[in-house]
């Protein structure tokens, strides 16, 4: 049986969690999820994913700080920042990510980025 690639989805919004999980499981990926930075870092260490989709604006540790710590543990692992806000592009901390995608009802851009790094 072919090993499924694993995505770690980090987002504090339930709706996004449900939508993304459904979409990416339908596409044949395994999806782990975390609702905050601390939980995400624990999963990242204990059960390393193949790719991370990371929200920025979350309570507690924000996504750019989570990104910095994940890249410190594994600089090669692809991380896609997914935010509702354009203005975080002004934060050069985002550069550590492979992609920065503004959330949209149309998931084509996000799906294309995931395929680019996992397929």
């Amino acid at each position, binding site marked *: 049986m072919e090993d499924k690639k694993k995505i770690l989805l980090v987002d504090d919004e339930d709706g996004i969690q449900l939508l993304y999980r459904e979409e990416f499981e339908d596409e044949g990926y395994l999806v782990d999820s975390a609702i905050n930075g601390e939980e995400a870092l624990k999963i990242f260490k204990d059960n390393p994913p193949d790719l991370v989709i990371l929200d920025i604006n979350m309570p507690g540790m924000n996504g750019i700080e989570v990104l*910095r710590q994940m890249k*410190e543990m594994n600089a090669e692992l692809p991380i896609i920042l997914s935010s509702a806000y354009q203005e975080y*592009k*002004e934060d*050069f*901390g*985002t*550069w550590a990510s492979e992609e920065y995608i503004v959330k949209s009802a149309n998931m084509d851009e996000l799906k294309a980025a995931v395929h680019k790094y996992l397929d």
Partner: protein
Amino acid sequence: MPELRKDPILGRWIIIARERSKRPTDFVVETPASKGGFCPLCPGNEKTTPDEVLVYGRQSGMERNSSGWKLRVVPNKYPALVIEGEIDKQGEGLYDRMNGIGAHEVVIESPNHEDRFTFLPHDQMILTFRAFRDRIRDLSRDDRFSYVMVFKNYGKAAGASLEHSHSQLVALPILPRMLVTELEGSLSYYKYKDRCIFCDIIRQEIQQDIRLVCENDKFVTLAPFAPRTPFEMWIMPRRHHSSYINQDDASLSALTEIFSESLRRLDACIPGVPYNFVLHTQPLRSQPLDHFHWHFEIVPKLTSIAGFEWGTGFYINPMPPEDTCRYLREIEL
């Protein structure tokens, strides 16, 4: 009693609120602990940045975007303005619009993550000023651009989002409003007196010697007469030049010397103070201007801009520049 002062170039009023008079030690500056972790600007992580557009210090024969550099300039990985395409100006009734064409570059001022711009040694700091000159020259060859804005945010409160020392250049298809106002104000003075207002300011400040922070044979640092914030400083060349990009290496060296001294004096007064500095230079498509004088403005982030400032355009400054100048000059470096 508070005092209203008018900036002679911009016509901008500020309020010196003397009853709120302060000493440097009254300003509390938070210096957040280093976050550590992965830094995309550090040597070894060059692959996380876009392809470099300028590098100093890497030995010839070494691969592009490899380590071993002293300064790198790279485009913004996630830019707000994009380099490809045409400007395509359009009118929509009374409104104007154009495509978001521009270049946004980051100057990585040192390979060392812990370095702070204020305390860079001369040989390292001069590379930043050389990079500004060389990048503006290069970007000026693109006739879509009208101006290159050069600025630095130092410290989180001043907008710096990365600890690693860096500054920024943004090439714009339009002239920033602030520059237009400065050009108009200085031209108006020139038409009236047939002299550059900046040259006159330098002459008067040297003569009065109450707002002159430091000087060398090529530059002066002034506390401006109507500063927006306490400890605001302007660094100006003594000789009249409207464009930054015509400086030779001797001028860049003198600029580095006075910039370093001014920033170290500022830091000695208020350790770790966040600040912004901005280069003011002539538009890219302009001939040399008799009425405009390139300079840097250093603005410490010590006061906040609230409703009054937004509503009136007046800044409230609790320290007169004559006082801040005295504090800055008393520092023994």
